[in-house]
């Protein structure tokens, strides 16, 4: 697994997924579906991104009755700038957009022209 701009391919896929709707809060299962990552891979990545101040997390204010509160994530301002740059660099290095995600995990990759 190569790393682009200090991020693994999986971390880049998470950043790319969060970049799509940077203002919206996303929950873990949606991110897992979008990136194709398992929970045991996705959450450590989210933790590292949060530790670096790139992702912010909060608990859902109004949970659906009968269901537990959900943890929500979105990019911080720094995170958005870093993610945009990292995804662009990764795509550029790979020669075409989304090529860095080849290998089956790249659900969040931009469309290949």
């Amino acid at each position, binding site marked *: 697994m190569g790393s682009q701009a200090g991020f693994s391919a999986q971390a880049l896929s998470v950043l790319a997924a969060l970049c799509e709707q940077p203002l919206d809060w996303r*929950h*873990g*299962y949606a991110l*897992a579906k979008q990136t194709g990552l*398992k*929970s*045991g*891979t*996705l*959450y*450590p990545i*989210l*933790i590292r991104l949060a530790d670096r101040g790139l992702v912010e*997390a909060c*608990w859902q204010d109004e949970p659906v009755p009968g*269901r*537990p*509160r*959900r*943890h929500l994530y979105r990019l911080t301002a720094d995170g958005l700038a870093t993610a945009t740059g990292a995804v662009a660099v990764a795509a550029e290095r790979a020669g075409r957009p989304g090529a860095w995600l080849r290998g089956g995990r790249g659900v969040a990759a931009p469309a290949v022209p």
Partner: protein
Amino acid sequence: MSWLSRVVVRLVPAGRRDWAEAVWAEAGQVPPGLARLAWRAGGVRLIAREAMLARRATRTLVFAAAAAWVAYAAWPGPAGNPATALTRLDVATLLPVLAGLPVLARRLFGPAAPGMLARVLRTGAYAAVLVLLLSKASVGQVADNPAAVPLLSSDASVPALDGMIYAWLVESVFLLVVAVCVAAILVLTARRSRVAPVTLAAGTGAGLVLGAVMYAIVPLGLTDHATSPWLPGSDADPVVLLAWVLLLGAPLAAGGLAARCYHGPGDPGQLAGARLRQGGAAGFLATGIGALVVTVLGTGDRTDGRAR
């Protein structure tokens, strides 16, 4: 969350619990069946990983505290005593080496192998080296201890400066051997070195026996005090012969046992090579642990001036 999951989440450090709870809470959104089971398995992995990271931080703190205490206790010594300078060299060299080696080993060979034995071996090796440092310092801190400057020549015709150079040279070799020994134990107990648990067990067992027996006999009759007072005899007596047999035989026996017990994957050709490597690792481990045990016990014995 069920009470069980609440208890499990408590294993994670306080600052990380939200994340563990988040995975668990999110499991309710995953379709029931295998997918949900896989999601929860990922949660268990996350909890295990975070709990392990906390343990690593604890280990680092414990080592830092022990190293600081050893440095504090070992540093003082009588002025003008050459052993004091040698002790300070030991402290200034070995403690940073002990701190840096695990980082290097982790980068090159991965974390510690799963299982209790690998951890116990690493902890034991570190404890042994720290005790060794303290023991050597204790010997050196007693100015009139005849064991304090064992390396300086008592021959008046040898200039003092030559004696010091010789002492520093020998000390450098000692430091190198200890560092290599610790590095070898870290490598052999690392995940990527793929040393089988049975190899670790055979090497450790043989090394402990070798070290204890060699200490009891006093190694190889190479000193004036070839045997212990309670085992009187000459350099050629059967006890010294037993020491030689053990020195060569224990690593061979450990290697043979490890190779015989190893049943790894692969075709017969690969298996033969793998068994050879496992045998070599067990033999090396037995030698290293034996040397460490006999050195620690032997140095400790000289602390009160009773040079054996």
